[in-house]
């Protein structure tokens, strides 16, 4: 049985090698003070695919996600070791500019968190601080394009200068996605982006994620098995800070090799 599993994992890895690997983590360990949250995680994230991170609460999937754009830096007691690479470059290297890294690896959070400013300013803020645009008309173009890509433009085109906080929850989350893609990132990290949304808004965001896959590498943390099954191509199962299993989504959901994964996706615990 074990031998067979190993074989299958190798197959999967081989298949992925055909895809370009965008980000990779090797022996990633994270601890918050005394408490270790991640143990030797090895995970490759293929380019232009959606990778779903699943697992019960407190298993470290969000921690891993936040390592990928060094959002954990803001927490004083958080220590990260191991090797995380973006396009074969160590992102924890000393010469790496965190600001530039976060422009390349954007993030969408669990709760929609638009700035308490106008919709236009929300989307235009990133391009402005990174100097991506030279003129006002350029900025307008970027904002409109980002909103269009996020599928929000048609709904709010007359309200561009009204506060972003006045939108509905689903619209706010798509606004946050538009804000993230406005700086043309290569990778977008999403931390349970639909957990605060109703099913209709969720469907819209999932549709959007599927569309965005063409241009961006996406890593999504989710508690919904169905969502993972619907939007992702690769799924990684975390448990108690360890990566239990990673494989193509279809394989994981139809024929998981690990008993824990099986139990989790069939709803035994979680």
């Amino acid at each position, binding site marked *: 049985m074990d031998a067979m599993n190993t074989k299958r994992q190798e197959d999967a890895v081989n298949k992925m090698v055909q895809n370009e690997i965008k980000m990779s983590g090797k022996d990633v360990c994270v601890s918050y003070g005394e408490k270790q949250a991640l143990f030797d995680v090895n995970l490759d994230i293929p380019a232009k695919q959606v990778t779903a991170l699943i697992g019960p609460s407190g298993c470290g999937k969000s921690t891993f996600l936040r390592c990928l754009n060094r959002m954990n830096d803001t927490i004083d007691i958080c220590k990260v070791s191991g090797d995380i690479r973006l396009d074969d470059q160590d992102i924890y290297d000393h010469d790496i500019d965190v600001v530039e890294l976060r*422009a390349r690896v954007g*993030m969408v*959070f669990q*709760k929609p968190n638009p700035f*308490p400013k106008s919709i236009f300013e929300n989307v235009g*803020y990133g391009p402005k*601080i990174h100097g991506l645009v030279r003129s006002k008309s350029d900025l307008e173009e970027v904002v409109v394009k980002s909103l269009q890509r996020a599928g929000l433009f048609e709904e709010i085109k007359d309200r561009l200068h009204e506060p972003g*906080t006045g939108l509905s929850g689903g619209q706010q989350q798509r606004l946050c996605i538009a804000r993230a893609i406005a*700086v043309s990132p290569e990778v977008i990290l999403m931390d349970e982006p639909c957990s605060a949304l109703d099913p209709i808004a969720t469907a819209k965001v999932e549709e959007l994620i599927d569309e965005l896959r063409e241009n961006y590498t996406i890593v999504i943390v989710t508690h919904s098995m169905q969502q993972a099954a619907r939007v992702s191509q690769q799924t990684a199962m975390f448990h108690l800070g360890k990566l239990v299993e990673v494989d193509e989504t279809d394989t994981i959901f139809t024929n998981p090799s690990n008993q824990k994964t099986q139990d989790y996706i069939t709803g035994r615990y979680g």
Partner: protein
Amino acid sequence: MTDTTNTYVKTASLEERRSLQKKRYASERKFKYLGLGAILVSLGFLVMLLMTIVGNGIPAFTYNYVKLPIDLTKVDPEKPEKANYGKFVKSAIADAIPYMSDRKGKRLARGLVSGGAAIDVRNQVVGDVSMAGQNADVEVPVSDFADLYLKGLTAKPILTKPDAAIKVSDVEGDVDVTLSAAVFDEFLARVKETISSEASRLNTRMANLQLSLDNQREIAANSQDTLAVESAKKSITSLEAQLAGFKTKFDALIVRRNNTAAREVLDTSMPSLLLKVGGGVVKITEVEGMSAKGEVIIPLEQKEASAGEWQMQEILEAEENRKFSDKEVAVVDRLVAEGRIENRLNTIFFKKGASREPELAGIWGAVVGSFFTMIITLALSFPLGVAAAIYLEEFAPKNKFTSIIEVNINNLAAVPSIVFGLLGLAVFLNFFELPRSAPLVGGMVLALMTLPTIIIASRAALKAVPPSIREAALGVGASKIQAVFHHVLPLAMPGILTGTIIGMAQALGETAPLLMIGMVAFVVDVPAGIFDPATVLPVQIYMWADFPEPGFQQKTAAAIMVLLGFLILMNAIAVLLRKKFERRW
């Protein structure tokens, strides 16, 4: 207990639960009424306080001015400041009050006009040179007691028009007054009342003296200490003399009280009675029911008047107990009748600096001093405080060192303000040798005092900004500085501004630390800059409250009103700013 499901838990009956509920509602109601009562009581005290301050202060906002015909023909329009205005004012007063012609009368008349009248006239002429070389009616402030009298705050008169004809024996000098009816009876009764209350007051004093006399006698009789006996014997003699003096006075008063037939002599310890007859004024010195003896203060034009054409003016406050004599009352009343007195906005109070004369003292110097001091305080404490708060809240590593700093800042907020004054004295004045009494140093000391307030308020405001905003900014690649300055700080601004304005309001009302650095100095000139000696509003109030003149008591209340006005204004600004910058997230 045999029925239904619950066999081992005893449940309360419906009645029991209902009574419990009733008790609960009763206690809720009680608490509500207690709270309401507390609010009403404090509101009552607040209203009382405000009413006292406003009631005392409002009169000081206006002042009475007297119009004097001043001969300015000798003033050289080229050098208007050189002329002898004191002389001009003196002769103008003599012209306006001709009936006070003897030396004593002239001095009295001059005393009704403010001592600063000459300077005031000079300033007016220098300000408007066209007045020079002419005879002009110039308005000058009256003296402080004349002003108090005109406002009804001292020597309050009771005016009546008696129903009797009057005849006066002469138009000036000592006169006899005869009436057609006994209208003086009522006044006489009041005089008797005054006599008996005076007698009873003497009686208590005598009783007290008697007590201490007995005490001393006992010491003299029983004490072993020869020294004590000696001194007791000395005090016995002096006490006995005093007591004998009181006794004679008391007996005389009793005789006067009981003797209804005799004429009552009105000395300065009795109520005053002035008669306004035929264009003049007679001050009554001896009185009985239908006739009186008196002395003419302002000469009469006619010696007789029929009922309703003359007035009786009683002043119950004894002349010796007030600082405004009957003669002065008569002259001021005459000036009012001539239309020379005008009550209008007290421009001196709003335009001038401090003065020893209540009528010349103004609040403007203190207002300007407060303004400069507040500017310095704001310029120092706001940027420093906000920068410190931002660093501590957003950038500082969380370690022992920063936590020690944090605790110390919180402790600083509780340090008594006078300690900051001592610090200012020791460091700013003695070590750095900065100018004493200057708004610069005052502002620096108050800035030290305000800093902890601003830092604590700013940190709380920064902490209240949700972390999701910070994450959002960092997530799109803003640097930490950008995240703080573009997103966190604007959201924290209303809280920071509110804290700052509250700190400033506290500093505006602060007296103690400024006393230490010499801002309590008597400064007549309005300060022109931050290095000039100055005082501030609360210190000015403190100084005025210390002066015994009743004119200053009014000023004190008025200055408190000005200070309260500024504080209300600052709080209103705080509310407005908070409303304007408030954003929801």
